[in-house]
């Protein structure tokens, strides 16, 4: 393998358990090539922070191997791993100025004064925080503290940068702006980023690849659009974006077209037979934006009729909850301009593209 092909981070069958029976991370394998922005996404308690701490070296895996640039890291303490880490609460040194905070890494690594100064200057430039060198952390806004933390982490030029929910203490507007900046910094430096978050929007908007974790295992891994469009399980479908998860009573395969029988006498046709054998299908996932309002009198497959049960106007679009059968509520996202004549209690016709119905086994 040439140097360029060696992945920056490789996790091979990494498991972390406490006391032998509490398994927090279960047999996770992951390869992060150089320069990639990977997000580990999952609800709290899914093992994502533990995974991050194992990469950083604060926890040792119970079994498995962690390699950074081809070298096994088990037994190597954090201070020897050449990794950057941005903390959720920033963990800036309160007794040091911005300059001193950012210079800390290069200084500890024994770089000369001029090298350190150069590293600090370029790190502060990357995060656009020039001119704040002599401020103390408490004199900075949340966003500026965040940038300082990022500058401090990148100043020693680590081989990879780990980010532990770094935006969760910021307000929404700033968070959205920082997402774009983080991505820009990452691309500029060409540095490998591993970003841990429970916020699917953050993960979707910045990452080259998303790893969804649940209960200590990788539930799905792939490009953001791939995960959104082809969730492999109800958990992923539900965690990433909004979805309608409808129980399937029976599925029949006709040359790559599936007929799904739902409760209440409904039946839908899906074009995605996929890898799941028809007998294993128990659910189907339909994204709310893939359900359209049909013209009156339209006909064809996957045409449903229902009564509007709830209507939530979100500004640009609205969400309708449509009662399509006795026990089946379908969430539908429609542009607000199509809302004319629709109110709670109205009857609407809905059309679902057969390609937008994703059958699921679990």
């Amino acid at each position: 393998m040439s140097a360029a092909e060696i992945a920056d981070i490789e996790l091979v069958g990494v498991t972390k358990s406490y006391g032998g029976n509490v398994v927090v991370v279960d047999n996770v394998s992951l390869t992060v090539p150089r320069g990639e922005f990977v997000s580990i996404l999952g609800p709290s308690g899914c093992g994502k922070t533990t995974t991050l701490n194992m990469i950083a070296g604060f926890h040792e895996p119970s079994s498995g191997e962690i390699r950074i640039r081809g070298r096994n890291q088990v037994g190597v303490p954090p201070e020897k791993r050449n990794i950057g880490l941005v903390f959720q609460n920033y963990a800036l040194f309160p007794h040091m100025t911005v300059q001193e905070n950012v210079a800390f890494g290069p200084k500890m690594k024994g770089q000369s004064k001029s090298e350190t100064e150069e590293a600090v200057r370029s790190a502060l430039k990357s995060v656009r925080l020039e001119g704040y060198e002599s401020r103390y952390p408490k004199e900075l806004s949340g966003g500026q503290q965040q940038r300082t933390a990022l500058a401090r982490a990148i100043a020693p030029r680590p081989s990879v940068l780990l980010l532990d929910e770094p935006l969760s203490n910021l307000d929404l507007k700033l968070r959205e702006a920082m997402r774009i900046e983080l991505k820009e910094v990452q691309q500029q430096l060409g540095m490998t980023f591993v970003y841990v978050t429970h916020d699917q929007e953050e993960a979707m908007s910045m990452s080259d690849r998303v790893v969804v974790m649940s209960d200590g295992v990788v539930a799905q891994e792939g490009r953001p659009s791939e995960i959104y469009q082809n969730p492999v399980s109800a958990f992923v479908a539900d965690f990433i974006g909004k979805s309608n998860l409808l129980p399937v009573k029976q599925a029949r395969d006709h040359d790559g077209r599936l007929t799904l029988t739902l409760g209440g006498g409904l039946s839908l046709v899906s074009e995605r037979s996929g890898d799941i054998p028809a007998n294993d299908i128990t659910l189907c996932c339909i994204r709310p934006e893939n359900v359209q309002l049909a013209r009156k009198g339209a006909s064809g497959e996957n045409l449903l009729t229902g009564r509007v049960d709830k209507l939530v106007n979100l500004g640009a679009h609205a969400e309708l909850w449509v009662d399509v059968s006795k026990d089946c509520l379908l969430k539908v996202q429609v542009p607000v301009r199509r809302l004319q004549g629709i109110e709670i209690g109205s009857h609407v016709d809905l059309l679902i593209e057969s390609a937008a119905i994703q059958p699921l086994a679990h």
Partner: protein
Amino acid sequence: MSKLLSVGYWVFFSFILLFIALPMVVVLAASVSPTSHVTFEFWTWTLEWFGKLWTSKWLDPFILSAKIAAIVAVISGVLATLGAYAVAYEKCPGHDAIMSFLLSPLAVPQIVKGVAIVLFLSSAGLFRYLGTPGLIAGHIILTVPFAVRMIATSMYNFDKNLDRAARILGASWWQRIRYVLLPLIKPGIFSGMTFAFIISFNNVPLSLFLVRPGQSTLPITVINYFEYSLDPILAAVNVASLLFILAVIFLFERIGGFTVQIHGGSK
């Protein structure tokens, strides 16, 4: 109603301040008393008594007390920092029990401790250590719990993520102690040392048992003098000690910056 409360508050508050300040005012007035019999005359005063302090009778005990207090402050500072590090920072096994043990000398009356130390020294054949070594050791037993308490508090308040941050940035154990932990707990260490200094400098009950004849600390000298005479020179000693303690506190605060620690960061 609220106005009445507010007036009541200020009256009450003034009384408390007066209660604290009055003895000092009396001592200050007595120290400049024009006659050897303590009298208060607003219009005649003298610094004669302070001049009389400038003799070896008073200077020697003062120097001894200051020396002992300084050594006690430094040693308790070091010991308490090490103890607090193990107990409050590293949370060693049984840290709660060890903390209680470290604070336990506070519960033993000083007289009892004094007797115990003298008995120990004599039965162990270490009687010759009475005097300065005994005083230093005795005072350290007394001051370490206070110092541990103050330093442990600043360690409990230390954000462990800072240590992790320093670590991931490549700092070794010693570098993390030197550049992150110590600067941040410095106010705690210095407030602990200040307390140790004051407690040692002013101590009577324990020192009574440990001083050697002819080599007495300042408070013990004052008590001995007081048995035979009550003149303004005692007041002058008190005022001088007070000024000295204030100077020490000021100096430690300049180095350690612990005002924040003591009154909760209103600065």
